[in-house]
């Protein structure tokens, strides 16, 4: 009975995961892909629960579904990424290559599974928050701390990238005001390049964000004219 239930759950969530994953790479619209991926994550979270790892399951939902993918969706919406344009493929040969490599990978794994066979295992109770916390803060304190440094680096890196984007209009503005034509930088306020083929939506967002960035920069530097950067 229980066996049947767990098999059923595995099939359900595993099937969902595979289905969503397939959907993710089949979909041409990145947003659909993203939502499919969220589906994979949630399915995997459910699998983790069946594997008696509730903490990881919850973190999976919070981090992957709740943070990373929200960011991705946010970016997709912000950039208004459209369906992949069908244009003459430059690297057409990659599709058969991918298929071949995928087949090899699958073959290898199942080769291993077939020959290694089942592993005896014991019922688990290690997935509780307390055991994870104990492991994380005793034996694995160093990886944990390194991870925190990594995250700090990521924060700084992301801020740097974002700030560079904010600097560009400033330079463009000063270049414009000095009459220099052909500036390599774009002015996101008057440039429609930032919006996609869907006019009127993200263009407004982009303009608003850029204008706010300029405003903030100017108020920080305390002058109306930006300097050459």
């Amino acid at each position, binding site marked *: 009975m229980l066996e049947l239930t767990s098999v059923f759950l595995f099939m359900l969530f595993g099937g969902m995961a*595979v289905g969503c994953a397939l959907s993710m790479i089949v979909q041409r619209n990145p947003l659909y892909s993203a939502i499919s991926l969220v589906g994979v994550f949630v399915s995997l979270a459910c699998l983790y629960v069946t594997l008696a790892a509730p903490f990881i399951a919850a973190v999976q939902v919070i981090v992957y579904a709740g943070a990373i993918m929200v960011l991705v969706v946010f970016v997709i919406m912000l950039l208004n990424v459209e369906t992949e344009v069908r244009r003459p493929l430059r690297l057409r040969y990659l599709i058969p290559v991918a298929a071949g490599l995928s087949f090899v990978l*699958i073959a290898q794994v199942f080769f291993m599974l077939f020959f290694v066979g089942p592993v005896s295992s014991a019922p688990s109770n290690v997935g509780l928050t307390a055991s994870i916390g104990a492991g994380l803060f005793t034996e694995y304190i160093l990886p944990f701390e390194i991870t925190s440094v990594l995250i700090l680096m990521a924060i700084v890196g992301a801020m740097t990238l974002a700030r560079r984007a904010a600097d560009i209009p400033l330079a463009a503005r000063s270049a414009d005001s000095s009459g220099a034509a052909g500036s390599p930088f774009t002015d996101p306020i008057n440039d429609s390049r930032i919006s996609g083929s869907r006019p009127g939506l993200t263009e407004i967002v982009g303009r608003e964000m850029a204008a706010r960035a300029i405003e903030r920069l100017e108020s920080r530097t305390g002058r109306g004219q930006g300097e050459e950067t």
Partner: protein
Amino acid sequence: MIPLSWYLALSAVLFTIGAAGVIIKRNAISMFMCIELMLNAVNLTFVAFSSHFNDVTGQLFVFIVMAVAASEAAVGLGIIIAIFRNRESLDVDEASILKL
């Protein structure tokens, strides 16, 4: 109990899908998501092993992998936005020269 190999097989399938996606997809964000899928496939093996061998280490690694993935998302998306602002396209094949 579900046999361990089932989870491993599932993980392998997901990983393969992700790997194939990285090669096939041209959109930077889609590639990014495929990489996340591969990470998750690995996470699944970690959790499965951890659970089957009753050892918490695997789950700790999953935890750390998630932290790495989060960092990667922050920086990666920042880069994607920067690329988009300069090229008005997310097609990685367009970005084949190390120049803006």
